[in-house]
């Protein structure tokens, strides 16, 4: 825990809040401390995150109508994005999980990681106030938001999936182009991603092999959660 906070270099005051943010309910229940987990902080963090991102989008994209802003925000605060931020922070190894959850690979589960990131935002809000919390959120979101400016939202799903699968199964996902269709100038490629002996984890199509593989990786990534 100490090393995690040191790594982040946040100017924190109340350390116990962050410990709670990284505590899954399975751990708290095991210790007989039913309320000492991160669910309430996650509730709060979710709201602060929505506000920080809405504010950013509102001022950064003055030409976007409400519907487009809403969709962008939904993508930015979704589980996959939050889990990617958790991976970036190396948060998984600091999660406090119950024995069963830990044995089941909970530290790599996107939903658990995403919840913990939201809980961290809740802790930041309580500890440092809205203004500082907002800045920390934007700082953590910077790579994602910079990508948004360039017109694409997520970083590379293939890399993301590879990091996950390697940590969890010790193998590298493999891609196969299973089908091509259409005339040469309008070809569509169909890809599948295979993980170890588990067969196809995701399918996707695109105008290039690379795009099809990305789409397959995206589907697999969402399936893992």
């Amino acid at each position: 825990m100490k090393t995690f906070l040191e790594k982040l270099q946040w100017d924190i005051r109340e350390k116990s809040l962050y410990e709670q943010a990284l505590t899954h309910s399975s751990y708290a229940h095991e210790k007989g401390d039913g309320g000492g987990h991160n669910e309430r902080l996650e509730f709060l963090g979710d709201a602060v995150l929505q506000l920080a991102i809405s504010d950013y989008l509102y001022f950064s994209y003055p030409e976007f109508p409400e519907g487009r802003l809403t969709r962008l925000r939904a993508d930015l605060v979704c589980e996959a994005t939050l889990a990617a931020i958790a991976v970036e922070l190396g948060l998984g190894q600091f999660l406090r999980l119950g024995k069963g959850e830990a044995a089941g690979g909970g530290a790599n589960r996107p939903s658990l990681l995403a919840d913990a990131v939201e809980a961290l935002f809740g802790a930041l809000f309580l500890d440092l106030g809205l203004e500082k919390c907002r800045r920390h959120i934007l700082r953590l979101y910077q790579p994602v938001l910079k990508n948004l400016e360039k017109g694409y939202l997520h970083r590379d799903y293939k890399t993301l999936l590879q990091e996950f699968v390697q940590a969890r199964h010790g193998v590298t996902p493999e891609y196969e182009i299973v089908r091509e269709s259409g005339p040469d100038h309008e070809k569509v490629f169909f890809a599948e991603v295979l993980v170890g002996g588990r067969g196809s984890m995701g399918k996707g199509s695109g105008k290039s092999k690379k795009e099809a593989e990305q789409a397959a990786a995206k589907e697999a990534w969402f399936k893992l959660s």
Partner: protein
Amino acid sequence: MNIEEKVKAIVSEQLEVEADKLTTETTFEEIDADSLDIVELVMALEEEFDLEISDHEIEEIKTLGNIITFIESKV
């Protein structure tokens, strides 16, 4: 280093601009700093000078000279 030099060094590092090209008249628009860059910069300045800069105060800052005057008034 005096405050002006320190500020220039931080801006140069955070926003990837050559320090030689920065003057007190330089505006954030000129060096293409968006709101995310400014968040990064403000956090770095807060850390370096051990002070707090509010969102309201950030809005008043337009040039490097503004930052320097502001920091000089706080430290």
